[in-house]
């Protein structure tokens, strides 16, 4: 029989993993909203705009990687707990 504390922990971890997956999906929508480097700007304004856009994409990618890593660590912990119960 499964230890009730373990069961609570597993539910908590499963919920966290599920939430993190959803967060990453939402972040992909944010990624789609970010503009790409523009063809309409010219000169220094274009450089400023493009630099700003690159920063945004970098921030977004960093956030996605961190959320992804957090999800993987959560899944790994779940795996460990399953093997401990088994």
């Amino acid at each position, binding site marked *: 029989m499964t230890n009730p*504390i*373990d069961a*609570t*922990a597993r539910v*908590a*971890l499963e*919920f*966290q993993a599920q*939430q*993190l997956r*959803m*967060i990453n999906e*939402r*972040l992909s*929508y*944010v990624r789609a*909203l*970010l*503009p790409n480097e*523009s*063809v*309409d*700007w010219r000169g220094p*304004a274009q450089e*400023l*705009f493009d630099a*700003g*856009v690159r*920063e*945004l994409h970098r*921030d*977004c990618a*960093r*956030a996605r990687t*961190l*959320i992804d*890593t*957090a*999800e993987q*660590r*959560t899944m*790994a*912990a779940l795996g*460990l*707990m399953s093997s401990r119960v088994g």
Partner: protein
Amino acid sequence: MSDELVISGGGSFAVATDEMLGSAASLLRAADMTRDIAGSVRMVDARLSIGQLESLGIPTGVALAEDDLNYALVALEELAQRAELLSVGVRFAATSYGLGEAVVEATTRRVAANVAAVLGFLFPAWAAALVFTTPALPMLAGIGIAAYLLTRNNSDLLNAETTAGPLNELLSDPAFVLALRHGVMTVDEFSAGAWGIPPALVSILSTASVIGLASSAGSIQRAGGVAGVLKETPVRLIGTTPPAPVMAAKTVQERVSRIPQPSAEHPEQVRIEKYETPGEPPRFEVYIAGTVDFAASGTAQPFDTTSNVSNAAGPHGGSVAVVAAAMREAGVTSESPVTFTGHSQGGGTAARLAESGEFNTYAVFTVGGNTGQIPIPDSVPAIIVEHTDDLVVASGGLQDNRHALVVERQAYGGTPLPEGVAVPAHQLTQYAETARLMDQSDSRELQDAAHRLAVFGRGATTATVTNYHYERVLP
């Protein structure tokens, strides 16, 4: 063909492409969404504290996940702030550019007016010499073309032969069209100078708006009247189509496609859609055709050159009379909410009807209209679509309806003009393409404006459409 839309006006000095404005809107949405996501991350983070991890015996690797989430929060906050800042930056750039453009336009206008007044004053003795030496040659060409457009008395003004090949290329060149717009604005100063009024006085009269495109058109019409052309007549109803059920236009493209294009088989120049909802006054969508006959006399067609000149001069044009009569026939009262949609002369007619204050105008939407110098009231939301290579738009002068949302596009940017089509950028099919691009745009300005038009006919329990055919009563 260019897919780039340039958006300006709407009560703002900003001038930007729809891509820029779309980016600004998307960036704000991204910032809002990112803040929501950060809230979710905080919630996940708060659910499992380190203490809880230990008490539940959860493997310590998850504690590292908590660190990841904290770093992710920092990244998300930065992302939201940066997105917001970039959005503000895009709008600031658009406004700065627009302000600069407004200053340049005002200066160019003043200089062109003064040059025209001096030229007129010296005319004819010095005019020829100045034509070949002045740097304002495009302005002079504009004056000439404007006078030609306003006075030419024949029915093949815009036929394929007269505007074929190189001439069509010239007439469709955005630089030439812009010069024409300035030229049209200076016809009055040129004429006043030619009448012997000192240039300094002309300048004062012009600044005080005592003279302008309307007074020039009025003078041309009076002079034409002496010669038996450009004379207004009463109009009469010839026929209507039976009322038929209709659905409200959902998109801008659909709206443009509903503008009448009179033919021998379907000569109706005005389309009126009536939307009824119990307990509310009926609402009316009025669609107005463009110029049908370019003759300046002897035609029964009220959508002719005479009406074009009359519309430039004031509110007494034949096409204005036609639409007002059709509206009365359809049951429109001064209280009925009305939206006007027009192409070419239909745009100018729509602007004149909105200006008259006789109707409860909900919105004005024009494509390729010569509306620049027709003052649409500030209280009336207006969307004005103009092609920068459309000569007809330029004949209306510079666009002074600052509160209107102005959408510009070069219809034939980077592509050859079609053979045998006179002033191709003025064709309704080209404006339908621009409307399609407007429907697809991410620009908040365009989306809000399109939404305002789309909701007008919504929720009606009964909707019918009737088309009206009018003719002039010839003496």
